[in-house]
């Protein structure tokens, strides 16, 4: 068992630390991303990080990355955290969309999109969920119809799209054939967010802020080369994105700031609470889970560096992250009292964010279904949509509701 850096890793860490030491005065603060100035400052900072080799660590060199492993990525995350500067802005783009493009995109797509994505010049969003397709993602209804000249016409609606308000591109899952079973008639597209016919409308969240959006597509024209992967092969591309999403979330709990040290620090401010047996039991339970999460992520890294690919069990880390943070928010607010719920309090923000995070990136119930079936090998539930053409599903659903 070895958690120490190898000599090469130690050297890499020293290099990263030296770079941060030299450039940290250029870093913006960690304020909320609710105005253009703040966002632009973070874009520029991402560009700097990319130039310094601190963004796209695991990306292949030919696409501007460092061609290093997940452990080096974590070293960078740790050093960025220790330097007290913000990390990259476009977590969705770098963690999920870029890798999916690398896996499924054409050479033209890779050379057009990856560079500006990496440098923060063009931010990406994930246009998957719809009002009637979240957990049941393959039920998307947004239609893309190919025209005689090879271009596509896109119409429909996406929802809960994080950062669509300042994204340049989105990766969009659309239905291109409704006469085959639902997983088969899907295609993935790159959508320029400034195309004519796109409307982005901010959706406010529990905190009152609007970090996610509704996005409407009204006969938007997409070029023939906007398809990622094959026509009709969109589900495979979507699964790649979801795999990278698991990895991003599974290794990222601590970078959300959900860690034992921060929560303990908050309780430690209250001398009375530090001696209250009930508070201590709750804090001990929460910290046990968060410490487990830290070592869980080391395990994942250790397995990845031996060549494993992230499996569905990474979803358990998401469940624990959300549970630990929810419990911590409850405890901290119980100790601090109503002031913890002041609108500008960091705890109010966290408390408001977590109920949504329980659904984002796969709801807890869906994760438990998937893990139960894929990891434990338990039988799936009977389902009504298997093998049925998408166009006939509605009437089956109606019969189900009437029965």
């Amino acid at each position, binding site marked *: 068992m070895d958690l120490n850096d190898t000599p090469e890793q130690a050297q890499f860490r020293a290099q990263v630390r030296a770079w941060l030491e030299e450039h940290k005065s250029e870093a913006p603060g960690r304020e909320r991303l609710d105005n253009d100035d703040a966002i632009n400052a973070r874009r520029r900072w991402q560009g700097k990080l990319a130039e310094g080799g601190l963004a796209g660590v695991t990306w292949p060199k030919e696409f501007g990355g460092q061609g290093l492993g997940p452990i080096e990525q974590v070293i960078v995350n740790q050093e960025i955290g220790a330097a007290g500067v913000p990390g990259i802005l476009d977590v969705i783009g770098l963690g999920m969309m870029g890798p999916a493009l690398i896996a499924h995109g054409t050479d033209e797509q890779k050379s057009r999109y990856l560079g500006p994505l990496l440098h923060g010049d063009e931010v990406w969003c994930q246009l998957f969920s719809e009002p009637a397709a979240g957990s049941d993602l393959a039920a998307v209804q947004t239609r893309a119809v190919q025209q005689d000249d090879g271009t596509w016409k896109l119409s429909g609606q996406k929802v809960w799209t994080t950062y669509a308000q300042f994204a340049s591109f989105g990766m969009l899952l659309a239905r291109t054939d409704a006469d085959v079973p639902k997983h088969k008639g899907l295609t993935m597209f790159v959508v320029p967010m400034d195309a004519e016919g796109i409307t982005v409308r901010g959706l406010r969240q529990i905190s009152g802020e609007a970090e996610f959006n509704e996005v409407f597509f009204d006969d938007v024209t997409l070029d023939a080369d906007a398809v990622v992967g094959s026509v009709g092969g969109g589900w495979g591309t979507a699964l790649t994105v979801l795999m990278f999403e698991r990895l991003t979330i599974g290794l990222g709990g601590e970078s959300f700031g959900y860690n034992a040290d921060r929560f303990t620090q908050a309780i430690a401010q209250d001398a009375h609470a*530090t001696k209250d047996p009930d508070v201590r039991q709750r804090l001990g339970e929460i910290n046990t889970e968060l410490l487990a999460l830290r070592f869980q992520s080391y395990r994942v890294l250790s397995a990845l560096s031996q060549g494993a690919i992230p499996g569905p069990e990474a979803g358990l880390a998401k469940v624990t992250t959300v549970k630990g943070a929810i419990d911590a928010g409850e405890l901290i607010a119980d100790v601090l009292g109503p002031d913890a719920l002041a609108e500008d309090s960091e705890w109010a923000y966290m408390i408001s964010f977590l109920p949504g995070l329980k659904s984002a990136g796969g709801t807890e119930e869906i994760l438990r279904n998937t893990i139960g079936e894929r990891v*434990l090998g*338990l039988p799936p539930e009977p389902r009504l949509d298997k093998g049925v053409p998408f166009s006939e599903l509605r009437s089956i659903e109606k019969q189900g509701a009437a029965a």
Partner: protein
Amino acid sequence: MNLELTDEQVALREAAQGALTRVADLEVLRSALEGGARPENWDLVAEQGWAGLLVSEANGGVGLSLFDAQLILIEAGKVLASHELLGHLPATVALDAASYAGTADYAEGTKRAAFLPVIPPSDLEPSWTTQPRGGSAPAPAPTLNADGTVSGDVAWVIDAPGADLLAGVAVDGSGAAKTVAIETGASGVSVEGPVLRYDSSRLLGHVSLTNAPATVLEGADPQRAWYVAQALLAAESYGAVETALTVSVEYAKERFTFGRQIGSYQAVKHALVEILRQRENAYAVLLYSGYSYEDKPEEFAVAASAARTAAGHAFDYAARTQIATHGGIGATWEHDAPLYFRRSQLSRRLLGGIGASTDRVAGELLAAAAA
């Protein structure tokens, strides 16, 4: 970074699996609950070389890591094997640190030691204490008298009956904690037991010391053995969780109701995934305890306490869920699930209990935050 088991560890685990499966017999545990003899496996422990796992080679042991010992406890926990390692191994850590004269006998297993579970002070409780025989008020730690003898009572000592030596903390006149070794053959030592309590695989006794001759184990860190005991009990509990999950998943695939396998119902499926989640968390902190024992001693207290808490909760949950998944037969004497349940019920209340280990996780981290 490498958290995979080494080839040696895989071999150690497989050997343990083979050896323990030979001796584990749940039928004997059931009959021991009704007055039959508790299965004794010390010969096996000695034969496998486990008695000296945590004793350095210089003192006649095999000098393996805490995590290696945890791997063996995991295998023992899986099959509810009875063993005397929970008492013996922490005691040998203290003997080894002081190079106690007879350590080699204990490392070879020709003699057996038991650890006296005297609880280290915390940020709330400044004194060394012991778990009371009954109730919740802490009992005093044994005292190291001016003449070098030790007096005091220690209740619920794992593996004390039949042990040749007891090792644990006694507090001297100045309030300092000293680790002492007491040969049980000496005058002034009485061990009440075996005390059978709910789990017939567990050997328990109450120790009473009256001016018992003792040797101070200079060089032994008084706290370390306590946390070794926590980390080992955590490993044993984790092992039982593995079995409870495997058995429950198998049953959930075989049992049909309303024309479906019960494992296809979300209420059942999600509960089994919850065992998996807690099991994975427990394994992660077990790794942390093993790692910190070697490489980050200042974090060992929090890591071992977290391991105890995580594995203890996982075991509680798994033992109850195993029964629930099996429905009526799960609650039947002849089924194995009740034996796992009995083990979990007693385990969570030994060595200070899970509540105390959870409190210690909080206390250690609060102290670090204040520093």
